[in-house]
């Protein structure tokens, strides 16, 4: 009788185990601790290239989109989902490292870029990168020493099929999508996506699915956001609360502060110089500029690569005030002389709760810039803000109404033919305004208009009222 009871208990346990595992395997309901190893979130703010943080941490997408049978969701790196967001990025990076570094066991197929429509109609996550990454730089940042696949030139986006674990690299310039298939490619992305869908995220639509002529395939807008609101923010310059001397000391670490020369210019900016080779200027608005006077702008045939430039720039920022949270490389400009790199401008951006920040100085919408000339830092500019939430809510206008307002401006007031107007991109941002500290930051829509007319460029519209706050002139 006792043996029978033990048998029954064992059988009951087996049933319970089958329920748990069936739930996990078939229904994607992850339970931390079983297959999904719980992971402590690492504090990655302020430093990107510290020994504890891998280089790939500043390889971040502009947009992270979840495609699910024709439904789309833009996943923002908000505090409540940051663990899932980071996990998706990490899994994707691991898949990229496995696929690009593998010497065997990978099948690769090539499609034309139109294939992305099919991928979006399926079950994929899509990481749109801020700019087309040079393939070699991309693999270098990922730490893939000798990438096997040499036919790829640029990477504009990365997609992962979260049911089949296939990996896709999009090269728009050459009109290719590369598909990587292997039984070795594995990820937990499907479980992460399931968690996101449990939280009932907003639905988005790609406008190119409706009208390819007028909207590029980057334009993704939320629908049914009539009841959605965002907080107004307030911002303080990062230098607020610090004396100019202490900021200068951070730059001139090897100098005695008493030996530095300082002047105040006509606009009230404070300039410090060591009298030999370098100087910094601290403005009232929070702009901090560093210049190395000795580095000449002409090419001196010093050999340095794009990888060196990224390393030099990132290490320089790390040692001089560091990176704000959720920073990433937003663009890279290169100049060559006789096919040799001699100048490189690397820009970094950061986001607040997944939303990019546009500073009061519109021309410096990438808040951190480092210019490398002949392998040395020539110039470094940054205007970083410490952001706080206010109690004021802003109700957002339907983005289709925002587009209507802009098209009316272009068509009715500027007499531009509707057929000539093409919307290249559209995304939410926070725009800073105001003179007094703290300044305010309000939610805005940024719309990038493409076309062969002088009014093409970036427009900024108040997300609450639809008023055009900035337009090209």
């Amino acid at each position, binding site marked *: 009788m006792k043996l029978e009871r033990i048998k029954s208990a064992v059988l009951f346990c087996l049933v319970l185990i089958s329920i748990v595992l069936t739930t996990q395997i078939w229904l994607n309901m992850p339970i931390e601790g079983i297959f999904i190893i719980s992971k402590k979130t690492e504090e990655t703010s302020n430093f990107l290239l510290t020994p504890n943080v891998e280089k790939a941490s500043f390889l971040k997408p502009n947009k992270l989109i979840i495609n699910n049978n024709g439904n789309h969701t833009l996943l923002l790196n908000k505090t409540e989902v940051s663990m899932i967001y980071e996990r998706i990025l990490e899994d994707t990076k691991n898949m990229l490292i496995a696929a690009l570094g593998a010497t065997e066991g990978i099948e690769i197929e090539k499609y034309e870029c139109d294939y992305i429509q099919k991928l979006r109609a399926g079950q994929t996550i899509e990481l749109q990168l801020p700019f087309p990454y040079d393939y070699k730089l991309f693999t270098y940042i990922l730490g893939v020493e000798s990438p096997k696949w040499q036919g790829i030139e640029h990477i504009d986006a990365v997609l992962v099929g979260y049911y089949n674990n296939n990996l896709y690299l999009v090269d728009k310039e050459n009109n290719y999508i590369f598909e990587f298939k292997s039984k070795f490619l594995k990820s937990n992305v499907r479980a992460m996506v399931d968690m996101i869908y449990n939280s009932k995220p907003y639905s988005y639509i790609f406008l190119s699915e409706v009208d390819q002529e007028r909207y590029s395939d980057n334009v993704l807008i939320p629908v049914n956001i009539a009841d959605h609101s965002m907080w107004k923010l307030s911002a303080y310059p990062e230098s607020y609360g610090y004396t100019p001397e202490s900021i200068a000391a951070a730059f001139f670490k090897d100098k005695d502060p008493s030996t530095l020369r300082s002047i105040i210019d006509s606009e009230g900016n404070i300039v410090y110089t060591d009298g030999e080779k370098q100087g910094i200027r601290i403005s009232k608005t929070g702009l901090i500029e560093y210049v190395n006077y000795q580095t000449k702008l002409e090419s001196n045939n010093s050999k340095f690569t794009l990888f060196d430039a990224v390393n030099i720039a990132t290490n320089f920022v790390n040692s001089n005030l560091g990176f704000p949270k959720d920073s990433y490389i937003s663009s890279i400009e290169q100049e060559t002389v006789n096919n040799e790199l001699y100048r490189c401008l690397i820009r970094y951006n950061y986001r607040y709760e997944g939303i990019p920040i546009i500073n009061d100085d519109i021309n410096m919408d990438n808040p951190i810039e480092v210019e490398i000339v002949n392998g040395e830092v020539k110039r470094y500019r940054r205007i970083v803000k410490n952001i706080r939430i206010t109690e004021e809510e802003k109700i957002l206008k339907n983005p*289709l109404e925002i587009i209507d307002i802009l098209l009316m401006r272009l068509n009715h007031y500027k007499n531009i033919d509707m057929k000539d107007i093409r919307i290249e991109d559209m995304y939410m941002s926070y725009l800073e305004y105001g003179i007094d500290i703290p300044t305010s930051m309000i939610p805005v829509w940024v719309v990038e208009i493409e076309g062969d007319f002088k009014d093409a460029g970036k427009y900024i519209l108040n997300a609450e009222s639809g008023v055009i706050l900035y337009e090209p002139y």
Partner: protein
Amino acid sequence: MRLHHKYMKYLLTISLVLVIMISSIVNVHAVRLENAIPVFDFINGVEEIDKPIIYNNRELSIKGKALEGTVITITTYWHQVDKGKTIISKNKLYEEDILSTGEWILQYSEEFQVGLSGIFGASVPVKPGKNKVVIASDTGESYEIEIEYIDNRKITEKIFSDMFDKVDLKFE
């Protein structure tokens, strides 16, 4: 009900096999996408879709194109099915069910005026089972699609609850 241990063993063994089999079938069926949701184009037309679209998302994105000024009405209906017809559609899943059967129940209706963008879009909720979406313009044209939403999680929850709810798992 109080189970005798020899019957309990049979019950548990059968449930073990059933859980694995049913949830596999449900999941494979639900993951498959038969047709993409079309773009409702009131300018160039839409190819007709004559069979229900198998769908596994509780939100459905409706998008389309029309001339500026057109008023578009999006209406959705859910098909209320007979009690106890199948294990999937059995009415305990749907709290607001009443006794009537085979009826289309209005779920959502909203009007949109198309602006200069020439685009309209909405996200509408769908319920497990058959759903009908009607997109009509004030010019008299309309499109209709049928969607069969299979919520694999609800189905499995239902299977589990039906199996174990009334079972007193006390050993004798």
